């Protein structure tokens, strides 16, 4: 009897069971990315997606170049044939060299920054991004084979980017500062006031838990405090753009603009901190 009842409501039972599983998975790790475990099946998915993403990511540069060349040729059609060929050739050359020059400048800056660092680092290229509007992670083409491990901090020459939340053999996923799951202990350089920078799912960050009478002003530089075990001290996080002091609040809050351009990340440095006792 029970069997037939179950059979009759099979579709609802499948839906509810899967719904409960999804809710259980969600609530188990939603506020703590450190507890995010994708398991062997998730690693297999990443293993399949990462190489395809790497190929598509590299192809996108060529496609964009070819597309811009096509549109430029369309506008030049009315011009003199010799001039058109000359302009086409120069533009093609320019289009080919400009990304190389920009990449060169970025890599030089990154190399200079890397040489200044007392830590061992591994350079990686961003091969995938989270397309959703309210979370911020990127996929980097450097993993455990390159020495990268969970909770390793990630930087660019401009400043802190985030930290690794998953590491596979040839890839790692980086939780960026604007992600709502991100929280970093920080200091205001000028006044040494301490707080916690949290992501809001938007380009700007929020510093919470500043003392009520904290001396913080727009333009102040904010760096990591070194508390919390993941981030080493004195990595540049950003600069204060606004300070909020509401009457009756126990703490002061500030809005910070990240120093690193997190919307156009292409190359990053992962700080490898093998000897430290952080849960990984």
């Amino acid at each position: 009897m029970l069997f037939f009842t179950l059979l009759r409501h099979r579709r609802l039972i499948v839906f509810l069971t899967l719904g409960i599983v999804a809710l259980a998975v969600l609530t188990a790790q939603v506020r703590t990315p450190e507890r995010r475990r994708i398991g062997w099946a998730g690693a297999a998915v990443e293993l399949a997606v990462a190489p395809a993403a790497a190929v598509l990511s590299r192809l996108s540069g060529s496609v964009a170049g070819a597309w811009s060349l096509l549109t430029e040729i369309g506008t030049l059609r009315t011009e003199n044939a010799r001039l058109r060929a000359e302009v086409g050739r120069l533009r093609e050359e320019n289009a080919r060299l400009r990304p190389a020059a920009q990449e060169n400048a970025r890599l030089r800056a990154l190399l200079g920054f890397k040489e200044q660092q007392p830590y061992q680092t591994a350079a990686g290229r961003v091969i995938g991004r989270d397309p959703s509007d309210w979370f911020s992670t990127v996929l980097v083409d450097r993993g455990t084979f390159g020495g990268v491990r969970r909770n390793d901090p990630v930087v660019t020459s401009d400043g802190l980017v985030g930290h690794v939340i998953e590491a596979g053999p040839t890839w790692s996923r980086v939780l960026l500062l604007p992600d709502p799951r991100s929280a970093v202990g920080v200091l205001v350089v000028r006044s040494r006031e301490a707080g916690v920078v949290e992501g809001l799912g938007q380009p700007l960050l929020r510093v919470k838990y500043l003392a009520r009478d904290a001396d913080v002003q727009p333009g102040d530089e904010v760096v990591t405090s070194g508390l919390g075990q993941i981030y080493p001290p004195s990595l540049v996080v950003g600069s204060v753009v606004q300070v909020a002091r509401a009457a009756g609040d126990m703490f002061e809050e500030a809005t910070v603009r990240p120093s690193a351009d997190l919307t156009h990340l292409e190359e990053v440095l992962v700080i490898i901190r093998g000897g430290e006792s952080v849960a990984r």
Partner: protein
Amino acid sequence: MTRVVAYGLLATASLALEVTWLAVFRPWGAVIDPLLVLVVSAGLLRGPEVGAAAGAAAGWMQDVATGVPLGLGMLGNLCAGFGAGLGEGRIYLEDAWLPGIAAFALTVVRNAVWIGAGHLVGLVDAPVAEALRVTLLSACYNGCIAIPMFQWLRRLDGRLERLSDRPR
């Protein structure tokens, strides 16, 4: 088994596309989601159980590959796949527009569940107007790509079925 492998490969290709080109190419700030169209198509063609299972599996893969909290996409796509499955036998599949309309409606459902669940756990604090704008735009894009994609997937599904029915 052949069908599962084929759909798995399609889901992987869609995901790779979503985390690379489609993460950058976002007309007016909204995302095109071919994986959701795949889930809706599976539901429309195979019914609510398969739709729900395909939705949950694809959503979980999407959570893994995009780095959002695990379970969020799983829940959203599960509802979309199940909803699409309820239309099996009710939607006239020969009509070119109906799968597009179904994809539009189920994108709205998927995003509502996704944003609602994210809000409930305190992670997504989206302004209502912005959430509505992004959702409706995504629904339009998905509706548009669903029209050719569904017909193509339907033909593929038919071929896979014939392949699995062939006597060994």
